[in-house]
């Protein structure tokens, strides 16, 4: 589903991502954890096509993000950590816009938007301007806009920030359903308990380098993910 080969990303003299290689198969919820400034957001933004690829290669469903970005983007959706949305649109206008640029039919969009808006309890707010939304509501709207066109790969940067417990629970269910249906999810989080319970596999990044990756049970071992993470942070200092 997602292949990252030797991805390297530099900002001037700082190497944000250093020869990162990862493979995320279909059907997996893949967690991406690391300290602040480790390179998680840079990696996600590069996969999503927001940042140019200078070194390395990324393919999504066999399409290269470097050479065939448009095709690759058709197969994925991206939700940033703090989704700024168009304040002059209402929720439904925004979703309609996304549906139009994603080429969804009228029946598809009506069915899916209604479904996910009901699941995330946002239906009553869709007629309101986005400028009146709280952070959590914007997050929910971004989630609906990502899910509604049924992408193969969903990229999320800290998706649980700002969501209430019910919405968090619903999102986790949606993530599992998406992967059971043949999709894949690659998301970053600082909440290790969520990563431990939700993810099939986990990758840990430190200072731009991948320090550990694999199935969650393997990464965690006999301890907890938190202990593994802290130990890795200490050993690499």
């Amino acid at each position: 589903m997602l292949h990252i080969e030797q991805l390297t990303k530099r900002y001037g003299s700082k190497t944000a991502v250093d020869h990162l290689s990862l493979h995320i198969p279909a059907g997996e919820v893949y967690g991406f954890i690391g300290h602040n400034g480790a390179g998680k957001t840079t990696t996600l933004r590069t996969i999503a096509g927001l940042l140019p690829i200078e070194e390395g290669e990324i393919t999504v469903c066999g399409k290269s993000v470097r050479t065939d970005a448009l095709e690759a983007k058709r197969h994925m959706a991206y939700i940033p950590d703090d989704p700024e949305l168009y304040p002059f649109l209402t929720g439904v206008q925004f979703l309609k816009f996304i549906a139009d640029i994603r080429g969804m039919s009228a029946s598809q969009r009506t069915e899916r938007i209604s479904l996910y808006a009901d699941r995330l309890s946002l239906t009553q707010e869709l007629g309101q301007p986005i400028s009146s939304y709280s952070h959590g509501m914007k997050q929910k709207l971004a989630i609906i806009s990502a899910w509604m066109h049924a992408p193969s790969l969903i990229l999320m940067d800290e998706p649980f920030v700002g969501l209430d417990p019910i919405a968090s629970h619903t999102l986790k269910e949606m993530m599992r359903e998406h992967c059971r249906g043949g999709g894949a999810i690659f998301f970053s989080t600082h909440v290790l308990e969520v990563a431990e319970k939700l993810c099939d596999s986990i990758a840990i990044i430190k200072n731009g380098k991948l320090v550990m990756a694999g199935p969650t049970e393997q990464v965690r071992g006999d301890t907890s993910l938190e202990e593994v993470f802290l130990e890795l942070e200490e050993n690499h200092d």
Partner: protein
Amino acid sequence: MIKILLKMQARQTLHMMLGKAAKKKAVTLPLLFLVLFFLLYFTLFIAGFTGMLFFNAGQDWFPSGYGWLFFTMAGIVEFALIFLGSIYFTKQQLYEANDNAILLTLPIPHSIILSSRMIWLLILDYYLGAVCAVPVLVSLLVLQISPAAIACYALIALTIPLFAQSLSAALAYALHALTSRMRRKTLFQTVLTLCILGAYFYFLFSFSFESEALAGLRDKLAPALTGTPLGVFGAIQAEGAFLPVIAILLVFIALFMLLIWLLSRSFARLTTGTSVRRRATFRRDALRGVRSPLRAQIGLELRRFFGSTPYLVNCGLGCLLALACGIFAVVQRNALPAELSANLGTDATALLASALLCGLGCTTLISAPSITLEGRMLWILRSAPVPASVILRAKALTHVIIAAPPYLIASLCLIFAIRPGFTASVCLVLAPQIFITACAFIGVFINLYVHNLAWENETQAVKQGLNLVLTMLAAGGMLTAAALLSLPVLLLFSAAAAAVVACLPLLVLAFLFERLTVKVGAARFDRL
């Protein structure tokens, strides 16, 4: 603390004007020079106009015993220029800036936050005030009016910005409170702004440089203002009465201080209060109606434009002026257009009218901030499977869709008023349309390279960008090039032929910038 906040505002403004170039010293200085040059040009233009206006008025009014009217009108014009320039900027800076929330959480007294914003606004106000007051002062010196009267005027001119800012902030408060409860607040704000602007321009253009018109104006205004506070305001300056002038100064200063005190007590509530609006119901059938990505993007841009008063007024005003120009030509067709046609010929008049409409087209800047306005929402378009060329074309086409109808109506009105020949008529319609199209793509192209995506309030994005200045200059350059190319044809052949020749470079440039935008610009967009 105020110094720190003012430095932050200055940095924001610099970033707003120069974008990423602000970080590169080698680029910043030339760009700053360009901005200052343009600012100086604008200042000298307005100051020159004001100076000539008041000099001519003074030559007629002082000898006829209406010196008080001169001072009254000088005060009104200075106040109006400052007030108009600042009311929406005041509303956005004081009550709607994105960093209000952060600042309010810090241990900074609200009065300090408010004062720093007010000082920044006052800098703008004093600049606008000086643009008006300095030429008036020069006129008074040249007319050899009494030193006492001049001194009184100078003192009043120094405090009018305080009064204008007080009124601006108070009205901005009322507008913010009122519109936060409205559903169609953009429509309301836009209509209000246009009414104020319309009244201002009507008032300003009632002045004329001709002595007969000034005498007529004097005879119309003097009876209306005699005995009123405005009349007394002018009279005490004309008499050089210092004590009443000082009393007025103290009143202006006291009003300003009172305003700061009042606003600082309610600043947090005003900036963080949520609007209480009638809730709109979500209807599932609103999801029907499938559009192509291009149409969807155009729809988005149209909503952005019509949903924002600052954007509409600052970048779309040229459209309204063009329309006003056309209507004026029809109403006054037996006056100015007829005179020009009699002196220059109908085709040459039509050529002049084309140039005028294209000149107004230079001030229609709808596409110029369209990349900047994406701001922190750029990720939506960048992560979508839509070619950058489609997005950029949509931004340019939005400009054309909005501007084309009013300019077409203006062209048709001018044809009706001037009655040129067929060729000149066709050019009078085509030239502004081609010019607008070229400007649309120029604006997008320039904004791809000169932008600031980290703006704090939308007014900054549509008012204070170097991209806006560069787009206007580029459009002006294009118009100048077309005029220079057609001039020999006008002199050697005919006005109709010159009109055709003028259209050709515009057509070439429109095509060139369209190609540049969708090819080179698309690659640039993909790297933003």
